[in-house]
């Protein structure tokens, strides 16, 4: 049995998906012990957490916490971990979760393990964690009395336990220094276009497109399918397409129903971004390209011929 504290990040009144997965990991680590959830500011999200496995919910409310402030969140988390005597502090393996847990670990002078896919209690606690965006795993021992880690995204299943938990609201102690890093403004996203991370279909081009102009047929097919346009890193560093379209370890992670990758070789770092795709169709002139062992379907050929032919066939099918 262990006492576990889980940071549950939220957006607009609902817990983040990965945070509920972290809560499921927390419940597993508690092994019958207390599972405390910490929510910053969001009362509506806090009220739901008993059903997702929290045995008690702590809701931090403070006038200055209306905008994200990662050092403040880290301070609240660290203070609460101390007062609860938590032996595990868990967060979601997202940009926000990783930065807050890293900051909490830095405050406490403790190690921090990001993006864990397995955690084995013991002395020391051992974890399996992601390297290379998940293309490689690391088994590591954590030498600390309090283990601070994040749960890798989409590994643990959020469990609706049907339980309930009291929500205890409190005003955390914060200094100006904790609020020095705080969101002071928002730049709205340019409207229009399909969001890459949420798209149902993504059509990508790689170096095989040959040039910025070579993307014409990629954009055309994406338009016909209502798909988002993606690309490989070879393309963004050549300046052919913006980085916002890059799929992969250092780009966007996608999870469409169908991923069409044309002229993309299928490097591990690219695959790290599209392994969530339900089906992959590779279009490549090389039948031996690595992507052939990650794809479900393939067309062997020159993308400059294949893509326009597919677009033309779609138009014919729709016209008929």
């Amino acid at each position: 049995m262990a006492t576990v504290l889980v940071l549950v990040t939220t957006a607009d009144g609902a817990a983040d998906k990965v945070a509920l997965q972290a809560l499921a990991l927390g419940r597993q680590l508690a092994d019958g012990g207390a599972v405390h959830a910490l929510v910053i500011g969001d009362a509506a999200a806090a009220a739901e957490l008993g059903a997702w496995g929290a045995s008690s919910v702590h809701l931090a409310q403070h006038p200055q916490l209306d905008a994200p402030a990662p050092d403040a969140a880290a301070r609240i988390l660290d203070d609460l971990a101390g007062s609860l005597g938590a032996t595990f502090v868990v967060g979601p393996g997202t940009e926000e979760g990783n930065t807050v847990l890293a900051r909490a670990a830095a405050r406490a002078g403790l190690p921090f393990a990001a993006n864990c896919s397995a955690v084995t209690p013991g002395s020391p606690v051992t974890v399996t964690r992601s390297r290379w965006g998940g293309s490689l795993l690391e088994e590591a021992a954590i030498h600390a009395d309090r283990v601070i880690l994040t749960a890798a995204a989409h590994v643990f299943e959020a469990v609706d336990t049907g339980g309930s938990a009291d929500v205890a609201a409190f005003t955390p102690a914060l200094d100006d220094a904790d609020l020095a890093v705080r969101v002071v403004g928002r730049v709205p996203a340019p409207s229009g276009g399909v969001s890459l991370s949420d798209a149902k279909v993504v059509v990508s081009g790689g170096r095989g497109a040959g040039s910025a102009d070579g993307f014409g047929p990629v954009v055309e097919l994406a338009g016909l399918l209502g798909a988002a346009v993606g690309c490989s890193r070879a393309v963004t560093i050549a300046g052919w397409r913006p980085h916002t379209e890059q799929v992969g370890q250092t780009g966007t992670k996608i999870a469409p129903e169908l991923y069409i990758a044309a002229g993309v070789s299928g490097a591990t770092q690219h695959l790290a971004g599209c392994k969530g795709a339900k089906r992959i169709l590779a279009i490549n002139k090389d039948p031996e390209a690595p992507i052939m062992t990650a794809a479900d379907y393939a067309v062997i050929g020159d993308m400059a011929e294949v893509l326009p032919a597919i677009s033309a066939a779609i138009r014919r099918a729709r016209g008929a």
Partner: protein
Amino acid sequence: MRVLVCVKRVPAVAGLITLTEDERAIDTKYVGFQVGPHEECAVEEAVRLVEAHGGESVVLTLGPAEALEQLREAMSIGANRAIHLVTDGADWDAESTAGAIVGAIRADEAANGPFDVVLVGNEAADSGGYQVGVRIARALGRPAVTGIKGLSVADGTARAEQEAASGRNVFEVKLPAVVAVLEGINLPRYPSVPGRLRAKSKPVASSSPDRPAQRLEMRRLVVPATEAKQAQVLGRGAEAAQAVVELLSSVGVL
């Protein structure tokens, strides 16, 4: 303005990853090395800050003797000098890495004054720890912003943008500060031939810090098992178009 940028030498793996026999490292017999994409952009950002505001940019790495190659690369696109914390090649956890970098920053600042901006990659390409920057900031009592894709500096303040669900979050922090950047913040330039020549004579200060006991102790690497697939070939060239349309309609995306 003084800018420090921290980079890490990692193997430039592309295809299947193979491990050394002791399973503690990637087998690099047949691969080259590079700094991670986030850090390539961090170097470019450092050079741009100094082009815009004057001063000097310093590139730092903790890594084996061979990492000199990555320091020269950064100097070839414009970093003025380098600090090399030389290791014997063993893995250092993020906490010890940050500790060694903080030591080097304190030593350099004692002689030359504070770094207005310390740039790091948001997470190392290989170990993906997400923490060296915030640990440096904490130790030095400076603000840290992470996940940054847009940066401008004026009047002793950094304005930094981070992608969020619908748009971008904007932070404003007082300098000196630590900024952890993501690929896409800029498009790094390629080194020129004169740049490469100049880099050869730029100064590199080397020292060998002690490796502390590792509290996040890597024990073994594992290549995750992936289901070995073989794509079903729908056809060759333009003639495959009809088969693709049938596939699109059968999976309901037409």
